[in-house]
């Protein structure tokens, strides 16, 4: 997108490059992988140091660890029912991996690994395969009755069954693209308004007012990014729970 010779490089920030000198380059260890390791480390550290004091009256870190445990535990039992406790570790890991990954991404110069479709698609594929396997193990062949809506005229079934199957399969796309698109679009917006600031600032003192306006927009957008980071992690976890509910109860 050339604007009078200046080009806004909106997608350059998502370029992967290897880190860790020649060792990283030899195993293709990119900054996205580094951020994944980092976010997993942050979650593990929170739980390790949060659970260590075992105080009756928790300190700040222990309270945070207990609150996050309770939050996901309630989400699982509310959405899935009693069986949800079996899936608690999965939902907890998914939620906090994505949450910390999103939040790290808002940090300047850090990389958001959830802004890559490959990452989010892998996570969505994990959820999808897991729910299908759970449903097949619990219900066997009866699982396929999930695609036959009850209480509709027989004449409509040839139309409705393909739609049901399609909507089941499209969960994979919607779950992965939702997270990826949110994180990518947010960072592209930040980049575009950042480029506006530079362009307007360079255009002369007359344009410093609009440049300041763009700076204010960018600050507001960063706040919005925090909201989106938490919200999308929550949505991913809730939808995982809802899909698990469907798998466990079939309708």
């Amino acid at each position: 997108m050339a604007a009078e010779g200046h080009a806004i490089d909106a997608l350059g920030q998502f370029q992967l490059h290897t880190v860790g000198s020649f060792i990283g380059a030899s195993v293709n260890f990119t900054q996205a992988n580094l951020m994944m390791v980092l976010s997993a480390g942050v979650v593990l550290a929170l739980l390790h140091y949060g659970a260590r004091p075992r105080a009756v009256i928790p300190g700040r870190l222990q309270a945070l660890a207990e609150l996050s445990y309770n939050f996901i535990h309630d989400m699982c039992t509310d959405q899935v029912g009693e069986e949800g406790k079996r899936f608690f570790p999965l939902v907890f890991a998914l939620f906090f991996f994505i949450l910390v990954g999103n939040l790290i991404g808002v940090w300047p110069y850090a990389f958001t690994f959830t802004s890559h479709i490959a990452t989010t698609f892998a996570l969505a594929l994990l959820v999808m395969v897991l729910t299908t396997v759970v449903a097949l193990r619990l219900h066997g062949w009866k699982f396929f009755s999930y695609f036959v809506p009850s209480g509709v005229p027989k004449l409509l079934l040839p139309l409705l069954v393909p739609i049901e199957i399609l909507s089941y399969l499209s969960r994979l796309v919607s779950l992965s693209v939702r997270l990826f698109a949110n994180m990518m679009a947010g960072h592209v917006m930040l980049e575009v308004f950042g480029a506006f600031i530079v362009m307007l600032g360079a255009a002369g003192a007359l344009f410093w007012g609009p440049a300041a306006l763009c700076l204010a927009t960018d600050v507001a957008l960063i706040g919005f990014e925090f909201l989106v980071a938490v919200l999308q992690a929550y949505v991913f976890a809730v939808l995982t729970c809802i899909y698990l509910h469907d798998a466990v109860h079939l309708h």
Partner: protein
Amino acid sequence: MDLASAKEIGAGLAVIGLAGAGVGIGNIFAALVSGLARNPSARENVFGLAILGFALTEAVALYGLVIAFIILFV
């Protein structure tokens, strides 16, 4: 028409769908406000649902945006 202009027009067309998402988000919060005006004590239960609906609707808008990006940059 050359390919570059067609691409830019296509990207513009791809984001028309964002109008629908705007209507949807407006609907969600209108319903939230009228719901809370009728029964303020329901806030705890309803607010989370509204935010969830907002996130899901916003994602639909971003699908259109992603299509525009794909047209422009890929």
